[in-house]
């Protein structure tokens, strides 16, 4: 048991932190968002240079062979700065799909492009009726010769508007709600029959709706067993959720910091409002909520690679509960303590608040996951 960072981990942390300090102030972020793709291509190249895009991939595929702790370190830093680049969508999420489903040959073909920054994949998973149950996928993949034809719609695809390609989950057998019968397919953005509509998101990023009209996927673009992708999807969900927890903690930490600074500086009735005990205690409670969330983000990272699906799901769900609750408490109180400026676009705090809300609703909100933990019999049945 050791909560210190290793030398390599410290290195990653320092380099990300340094980059974001110079390139990712609040105003710089607004500029990145305003670029055509909704983020800064230049920064993406910097991420590649720093090796951030290589983190979770195996060394044999050109990656760094690092794990959930390293991803946690990066995502926490990204959360502090509210990074809008598609790291979560592309490296964490689509990357995990490749790691868990693709063959060595497929990885050798695809991963190097991701690592060097030239290809940015997105994971097309959710549909209108999916909500938080990722087995509830209806989109059909019908066998044609050696390959498949995809037809249907995907929505809420994070960074789906600018991705160079997609990992697409579709059903080769079974019915929505069944884990069996799902396959993963690697589809280039320019594939015949694939159209997309991009849209901005509440938290200042971008996403897309995709329509597949009989899109052909050749054999070598089928990632793993076309009827047995569920275990890979479940692992992707765990890893992306753990990464989101870390991002949320970075953002919460920043909110606590901004709020404490604000109340020390803001004067009312002739004194800094930090002089009011009620606000002091509120800040203390925010700090406690942050530390509890941080503990559970670490717990999520510890369990993201756990092999037993039930144990992994319960741990991740527990983390999502804590992160959702802490994020809401901290976000709402950070806005409240900022007063009027807290509800304007002109201050950083509102953007953190919105990001927290969206993180809670991504892959299941706090109460949804609480139900999952309860249904699993609680936290401590195992030891």
């Amino acid at each position: 048991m050791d909560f210190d960072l290793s030398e390599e981990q410290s290195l990653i942390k320092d380099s990300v932190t340094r980059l974001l300090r110079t390139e990712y102030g609040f105003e710089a972020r607004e500029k990145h968002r305003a670029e055509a793709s909704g983020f800064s291509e230049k920064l993406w190249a910097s991420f590649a240079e720093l090796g951030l895009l290589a983190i979770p991939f195996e060394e044999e595929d050109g990656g760094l062979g690092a794990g959930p702790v390293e991803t946690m370190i990066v995502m926490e830093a990204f959360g502090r700065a509210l990074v809008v680049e598609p790291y979560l969508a592309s490296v964490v999420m689509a990357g995990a799909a490749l790691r868990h489903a693709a063959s060595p040959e497929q990885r050798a073909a695809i991963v190097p492009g991701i690592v060097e920054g030239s290809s940015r994949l997105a994971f097309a998973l959710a549909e209108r009726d999916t909500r938080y149950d990722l087995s509830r996928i209806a989109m059909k993949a019908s066998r044609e010769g050696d390959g498949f034809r995809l037809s249907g719609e995907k929505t809420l695809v994070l960074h789906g508007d600018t991705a160079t390609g997609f990992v697409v989950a579709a059903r080769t057998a079974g019915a929505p709600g069944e884990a069996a019968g799902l396959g993963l397919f690697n589809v280039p953005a320019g594939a015949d029959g694939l159209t997309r509509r991009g849209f901005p998101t509440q938290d200042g990023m971008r996403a897309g709706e995709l329509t597949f009209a009989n899109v052909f996927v050749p054999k070598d673009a089928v990632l793993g067993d076309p009827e047995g992708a569920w275990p890979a999807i479940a692992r992707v969900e765990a890893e992306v959720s753990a990464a989101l927890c870390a991002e949320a903690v970075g953002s919460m930490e920043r909110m606590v910091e901004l709020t404490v600074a604000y109340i020390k500086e803001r004067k009312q009735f002739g004194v800094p409002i930090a002089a009011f005990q009620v606000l002091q205690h509120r800040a203390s409670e925010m700090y406690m909520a942050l530390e509890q969330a941080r503990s559970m983000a670490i717990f999520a990272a510890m369990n993201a690679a756990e092999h037993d699906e039930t144990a992994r799901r319960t741990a991740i769900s527990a983390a999502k509960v804590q992160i959702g609750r802490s994020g809401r408490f901290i976000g709402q109180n950070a806005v409240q303590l900022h007063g009027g400026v807290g509800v304007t676009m002109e201050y950083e705090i509102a953007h953190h608040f919105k990001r927290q809300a969206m993180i809670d609703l991504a892959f299941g909100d706090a109460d949804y996951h609480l139900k999952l933990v309860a249904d699993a019999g609680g936290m401590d049945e195992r030891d």
Partner: protein
Amino acid sequence: MDLTFTPEETEFRAEVRGFIAGNVPKDAQETLRAGRHVSKDQLVRWTRILNDKGWSVPHWPVEYGGTGWDPIRQYIFLDEMQRAPAPQMLPFGHSMVGPVIYTFGSKAQKDRFLPRIANLDDWWCQGFSEPGAGSDLAGLTTRAVREGDHYVVNGQKTWTTLGQYADWIFCLVRTDPQAPKKQMGISFLLIDMTAPGITVRPIRTIEGGHEVNEVFFTDVKVPAENLVGEENRGWDYAKFLLGNERTGIAGVGATKERIRRLKEIAKAEPAGAGVVWDDPRFREKVAAVEIELKALEMTQLRVVSAEARRGHGKPDPASSILKIKGTELQQATTELLMEAIGPFALPYEAEAVEGRNEPPVGPDYAAPIAPNYFNMRKVSIYGGSNEIQKNIIAKAILGL
């Protein structure tokens, strides 16, 4: 103690309900039902319909266009307005400057302004808050210097709601910086928004809308006849104004309407093999809010009934409960809407609250939900933050 409405009160409610149902512009009602903001035009149309009926300023004295209704009837009227839903009157003319003018204004001011407020011929906005003075309102620094028959105003106001549409602004200004207490050197001025030297800068609020503004005054000339009451007595009028906006502060009717919409959406939105509403836990959360709301409604009726007994105009410190609980429930219902819509809260439509052009991403009821949740964080901040309200309860009710 008789805890039911009298037959006359019930009949009155039916009359109000019938009138609203038969006369409210349908487009405005649809807009509200969808959780979107009404336009200026919709509000003006509805105000004039009400004014024709004699109901646009029901709480004013009869001589200035009021109805003579007792507080319980006023409560019923407002409740029906919120539940219909019909566009609510903006407070700035109707509940803020109107009562100040008829209570402290000159005959000329009454004659000139009151009918135009009742008909929404003049759109008013409020010039109280300043960047350096939020909860500490009396810390304001906007200066007005008397020069002959006018004042020259310099300074800045902020959080000026819907100031972009305003014809007039009522302002607290400092006329005596040397006054022994900061509350004593403040005056209450009515200022024409078209006067040279006024600049309005929009503030984009958290959800992306344009609802509030900064208003800058540079050597703005204001005729002395636009001073309300006496010079340096403005703080008294401001306190009167702030204590006056009580009825309906809890927004019980509006919250009921939002719960109706919440249930509708929860019954439509897919979740698992069914819909969100199938989850007993979700229904319990809604029920918990409804119970608190019922308690608040009863509390409000008790406050209104006590007001009816005590006579008009004395603000009841218990109305701080209405503010706190009312805003908590407004916020809680927007949170439940977020929970109901789940992942489809994510897409941002620039026109989500005002109306839109593109086909929606996800269900068509989704778009206003996240913006409303974000925007509604303001209600525990403005109008005297909920922390300030708790100070008031501690001091004025509990003697702490």
